[in-house]
């Protein structure tokens, strides 16, 4: 099957809206920790709406490419088999982990993904703050090997949707910790708070989609510690509430740096180096920020 008969994300939208309303009310009546700021929420929701439009615009190219790859598949995997769903669950989640890690550790892909991280809040509306430029960044190419293996494009699309829907509920401060066994295996509000934090201690961690096991396996897991509450946003927070600035600021930053680069090597560094890379090391990357933090806590 090529085209998915349904889209989990579209089906979940009414639930998203109700859950956000509920979280706002819980915060209002002091039943749970939930902060909402008007302009911050407006930006998150506008980003969500815009990203679905961008998804339609790029959807044709993505779909055609995926089908093209599927036509040259190695195996034919039946969409009706339980084992196939189990396999696609793990393989899609592993793909997501590497996509997400790349999206943080290399500036070209960060330019698109940073959009998700610019809120200084962490509530359910933050989950809907999705990029508009993922199609341009081309990270969707990373899912093509699944189609090449022989997973039907519809199956991969549905699993991607399930992952996105799963990740909605973990964007909250209303849930402290889940049971220990759950925290060990699954991505949770606690793990993903760390992922959205700008504290040096927490940078570049917890890239998981549904399963946190990948971070534990590949050494990127950092637990949330109660002594250091998460502060949300990016290392250098946005200076304004301009929607288009949020969408394009890192792309503009790359263009400016490349225009001022003194050699092709420098230009490549600005585009594909870690966010914050500079030829003379005068800017901060998450590595330098972590090193400075370690030095500070070591001395104090």
């Amino acid at each position, binding site marked *: 099957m090529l085209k998915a008969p349904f889209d989990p994300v579209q089906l979940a939208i009414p639930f998203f*809206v109700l859950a*956000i*309303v509920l979280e*706002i*009310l819980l*915060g*209002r009546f002091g039943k749970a920790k*939930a*902060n*909402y*700021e*008007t*302009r*911050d*929420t*407006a930006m998150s*929701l*506008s980003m*969500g*709406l815009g990203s*679905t*439009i961008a998804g339609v615009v790029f959807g044709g190219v993505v779909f055609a490419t995926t089908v093209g790859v599927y036509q040259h598949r190695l195996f034919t995997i039946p969409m009706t088999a339980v084992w196939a769903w189990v396999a696609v669950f793990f393989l899609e989640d592993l793909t997501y982990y590497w996509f997400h890690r790349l999206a943080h550790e290399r500036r070209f892909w960060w330019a698109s993904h940073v959009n998700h991280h610019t809120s*200084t809040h962490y509530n359910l*509306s933050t989950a809907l703050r999705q990029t508009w430029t993922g199609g341009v960044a081309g990270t969707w190419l990373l899912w093509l090997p699944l189609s090449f293996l022989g997973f039907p494009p519809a199956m991969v699309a549905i699993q991607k949707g399930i992952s996105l829907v799963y990740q909605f509920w973990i964007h909250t401060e209303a849930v402290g910790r889940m049971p220990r066994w759950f925290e060990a295996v699954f991505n949770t509000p606690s793990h993903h708070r760390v992922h959205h934090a700008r504290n040096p201690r927490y940078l570049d961690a917890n890239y998981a989609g549904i399963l946190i096991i990948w971070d534990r396996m590949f050494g990127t897991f950092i637990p949330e510690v109660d002594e250091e509450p998460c*502060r949300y*946003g990016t290392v*250098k*927070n*946005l*200076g*304004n*509430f301009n929607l288009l*600035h949020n969408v394009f*600021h890192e792309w503009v930053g790359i263009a400016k740096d490349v225009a001022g680069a003194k050699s092709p090597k420098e230009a490549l560094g600005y585009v594909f180096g870690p966010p914050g890379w500079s030829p003379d090391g005068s800017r901060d990357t998450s590595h330098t920020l972590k090193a*400075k*933090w370690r030095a*500070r806590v070591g001395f104090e």
Partner: protein
Amino acid sequence: MIQLGGSVVAVALLVAFVRWLGVARPTPPLDAASAKALLDVEFPDHRPKATWIASDGAGLIARDGELALVLYKRGDGYVARDLPWSAVASLKPTSGRVTVRVSDARPTFAVSDDVWPPKELA
């Protein structure tokens, strides 16, 4: 198209709902203690020798040698930027406000008198 229109309305309603019942973080006017705490978090590698707090408490400018450390309010939080002290020193307050130019914003600060730079930083 109908779906898009519906989505725009839904977003507008939710934003209105947040405006009505949403609980933002409290941001009381800065005092010496909260200003120091904010500077420690946002500029941990600087030891500013002097700090000026805007007269409405909604921002601050600290000075570390030739560098001005600026914190201004955005929504219910603060944004940190640094710029050369000379760029701040040469500003001219008008009708009780002074506007600083940073890369992606032009925050304004309330000044009690039109003496600039403020005596705390001079």
